[in-house]
């Protein structure tokens, strides 16, 4: 089971973390954009379809603060 954080991490913020991760980030970023390219070229199915049950929850991200 995937644990979802109670805090919405933010889509852009997630991507930024993949870019800011120093040397390790290069490989990840390469893979990420490669996957996107394959999707655009329709070689691969869209990998970013959110799971059905969380689709509606993502419409309006709730960004909570701490307890």
């Amino acid at each position, binding site marked *: 089971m995937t644990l979802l954080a*109670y805090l919405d991490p933010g889509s852009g*913020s997630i991507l930024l973390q993949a870019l800011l991760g120093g040397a390790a*980030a290069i490989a990840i970023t390469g893979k990420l954009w490669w996957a996107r390219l394959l999707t655009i070229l329709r070689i691969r199915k869209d990998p970013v379809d959110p799971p059905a049950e969380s689709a509606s929850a993502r419409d309006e991200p709730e960004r909570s*603060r701490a307890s």
Partner: protein
Amino acid sequence: MPPEPAADPGSFRDPDSRVFRDGDRILRALSDRGLSDWERLVGSSFFGRMQEEGKIVPTERIEDPEATRHEGFPAAATLRHARVPFVSYPYEWPFSMLRDAALLQLELLRAALAEDMILKDASPFNVQWHGSRPVFIDVGSFELLPDGEPWAGYRQFCCLFLNPLMLQAYAELPFQSWLRGSLEGIEPAEARAVLRGRHTLRAGVLAHVALHARLERREGERDTRTEVKKAGFRKELIEANVARLQKLVGKLDWGSEKTAWSDYSDRAHYDAEELERKDRFVRETCASVGPGLTWDLGSNDGRYSRIAAEHSGYVVAVDGDHATVEALYRDLREARDERILPLVMDLADQSPARGWRGAERGRLEERGRPDLILCLALVHHLSIAANVPLAEVLDWLASLGGTVVIEFAGRDDEMVKRLLSRKRDDAHPDYTLESFEQALGQRFEIVRREPLASGLRTLYEARPR
């Protein structure tokens, strides 16, 4: 059956951990998942060490399921925390307090990552103070590092720590009023609206502000979480980002050149002998009251906070001038002082009740009543500069219930003259020693009075009726 313990109104967002108050006890109820995270935390090497170093609030598990019995939150376990002396909020801190709280957050995050744990959020509301020592209070924030997941608190760290600090350090924009207006903090796009042009070249702005705002605008609808996971996101990326943030925040600076007190003039016309008499008056009152909690309102450089601290359990030093409080905090930090909490607040526009139903973040007097209140060189600022009627000022002080040491500066006092000169000639006709003393006497029992500064100022000790 005893009444249900009161759920803390500022702690309900994390579904796995909730704080309750039971008299003087601060308790935390954990869900099943919260409990397994707690067990992992207790087994870690850093948790005990950080508690010993005073960086994490002392916490123990207690076997008292009734203590956190609460409808809608079945507790799998109950923790008990040590109390912090007085709760404060980031919109009341000077720059270096927010910066030091950020560094503590990052230090704990790094220690947790080394043992495959993480902090699930990054909120300055999770940091409180023992004087100048920050302490992390939200033990429920530590959780098992989910495999392949990025740091969920990164955005919150930017909004509530990094952006406020950068706006202050780079653009001289005071962050307190912004954070007071938005408990969610300053979003990347908002920070970018200020940190443009030449600011883009300052450390951290390009990545954490400009790129962040751009990606947020472009990627808002995408499920990047699944994407980065598939691309092999791992812990090392978080660690690298956190190390960069530590370096960045450590270098941010504001207020270093502003160590001169911004308002020396209030003390300038006291000679040494009179200053000593004023010190003695304050010291004697503190000794006779023996207060648990003292408020020093208009604390300036903290001279009287320090005197009060000799005989008080704890002192909250409040001043409206950011640079002055910044300098006081730096001094206290240097001295490792744990008895005086310096806060930035305009007393004519105090911290309001904030958050959900106005109950998450309390007003100053909701967080602890003072046994002693120092109001030195303050009344004329409130009454003349801020136009709060004398009677209103005294009503508020009387409502707090403590003894007051209050100074009244007459119309011939240099500071008062200066304040009055900015008003029309017949302004504040009721600002006289006689009407002040009468109003004070109606609300308090005047224990003693002492004329100072050649009779231009008068010091009173007054007890609540």
